[in-house]
């Protein structure tokens, strides 16, 4: 057989290189959705698995540190990969990243990672630190264009003021989000003047939108932050692994602001109520004083009344004596009053209670 004109003859190695160059030119990156099978980890570093559907199967290769979410056989995933022909002639996908696809796979991946991190103690209650009662300097990691961020800033401003708020603008969904958030966490942790809290917020979204917050390195960065963390992602019903790793979990970005600072309107109400409550106390003290005065006054009055009664009683007694001593009283009892010289022949006057008698003394004799 003759060599065709203009047909190059490759060495095997060259063919593989040219083939890979052509592949790279045509498909610099592909995203493929399929089901995982034959998943295995070699030497704790290299991951091999197949991604398949009803019509075919392709081998995949990646390193352990590229695997940000756990996967296992049977899970539906999407891989972002570079197609490659290996030096042994086997077609393979060199996977750059992988993420679960579909509700079931996302949930499964979530549960696997949750169990792994829980076993390591990343979510343990004893690791949780308290947030300052009223922080003066906080860091916020969010997308400044997101509604959740706007809600947080508004409620924070409504409730409290005087806080220095440093904001790191990052993507809060998509493949790039976890790394951006990790860089922002590291940035704040390296500041000379550390914020008192790092607040990571994102509004609601689909399970896929929120999956960035179930990224293993991000969850570890939150758990490892030397600055206490407050995470408010999604709606009340959403639970992310970032929530579980945070020192404090908020159900929403608005709730994060509510947890972070007190409500100044409530404090003003409480302060005014406190002051208003003093007036009844003063009135009560006045009443008590008045009652004490009344009691003293009553006692004094009683003493005076008793003294007066005693004097009246004494007067009555004297009056009785006087009445008894009244000559008319004596005359009324049948006695008579004699006036004049008591000598024989003298004229005397005898007064009884009802008559006055003129009489002459006939004799006087001693008893």
């Amino acid at each position: 057989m003759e060599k065709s004109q203009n047909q190059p003859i490759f060495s095997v190695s060259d063919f593989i290189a040219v083939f890979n160059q052509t592949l790279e030119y045509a498909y610099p990156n592909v995203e493929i959705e399929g089901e995982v099978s034959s998943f295995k980890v070699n030497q704790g570093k290299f991951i091999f698995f197949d991604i398949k559907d009803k019509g075919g199967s392709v081998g995949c290769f990646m390193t352990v540190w590229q695997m940000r979410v756990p996967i296992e056989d049977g899970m539906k995933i999407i891989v972002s990969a570079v197609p490659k022909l290996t030096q042994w002639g086997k077609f393979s996908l060199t996977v750059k990243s992988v993420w679960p696809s579909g509700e079931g796979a996302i949930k499964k991946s979530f549960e696997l990672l949750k169990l792994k991190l829980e076993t390591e103690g990343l979510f343990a209650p004893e690791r949780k630190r308290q947030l300052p009662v009223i922080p003066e300097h906080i860091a916020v990691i969010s997308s400044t264009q997101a509604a959740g961020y706007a809600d947080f800033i508004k409620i924070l401003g409504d409730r409290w003021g005087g806080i220095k708020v440093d904001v790191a603008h990052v993507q809060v969904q998509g493949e790039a989000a976890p790394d951006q958030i990790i860089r922002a966490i590291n940035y704040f942790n390296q500041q000379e003047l550390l914020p008192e809290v790092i607040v990571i917020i994102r509004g609601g979204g689909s399970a896929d939108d929120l999956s960035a917050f179930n990224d293993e390195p991000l969850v570890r960065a939150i758990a490892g932050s030397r600055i206490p963390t407050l995470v408010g992602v999604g709606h009340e019903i959403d639970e992310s692994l970032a929530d579980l790793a945070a020192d404090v979990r908020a159900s929403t970005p608005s709730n994060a602001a509510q947890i972070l600072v007190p409500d100044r309107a409530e404090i003003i109400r409480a302060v005014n109520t406190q002051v208003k409550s003093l007036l009844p106390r003063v009135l009560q003290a006045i009443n008590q004083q008045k009652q004490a005065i009344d009691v003293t006054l009553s006692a004094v009055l009683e003493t005076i009344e008793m003294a007066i009664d005693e004097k009246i009683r004494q007067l009555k007694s004297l009056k009785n004596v006087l009445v008894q001593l009244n000559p008319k009283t004596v005359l009324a009892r049948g006695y008579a009053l004699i006036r004049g010289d008591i000598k024989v022949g003298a004229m005397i006057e005898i007064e009884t209670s009802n008559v006055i008698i003129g009489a002459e003394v006939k004799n006087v004799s001693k008893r």
Partner: protein
Amino acid sequence: MSVKDKTIQEKTIELTKLVGWFDGDDFKLEAALDKFKEAEDLAADIEKDLLSLKNEIQIVKQKFDSDN
């Protein structure tokens, strides 16, 4: 330190102490009116301070889309 120089927290502590005086053994009716006025002024001051506080929001210049 004058009332103007005190922080909200210091003023709140002072108000709490004043309120406590009304419940304590040192309470004297003769001094109550002055103390009440003092508490009223402090409460008004705290309210004014709280309402005037604004947050200072600053977007950091650092970009986080790459390691640089």
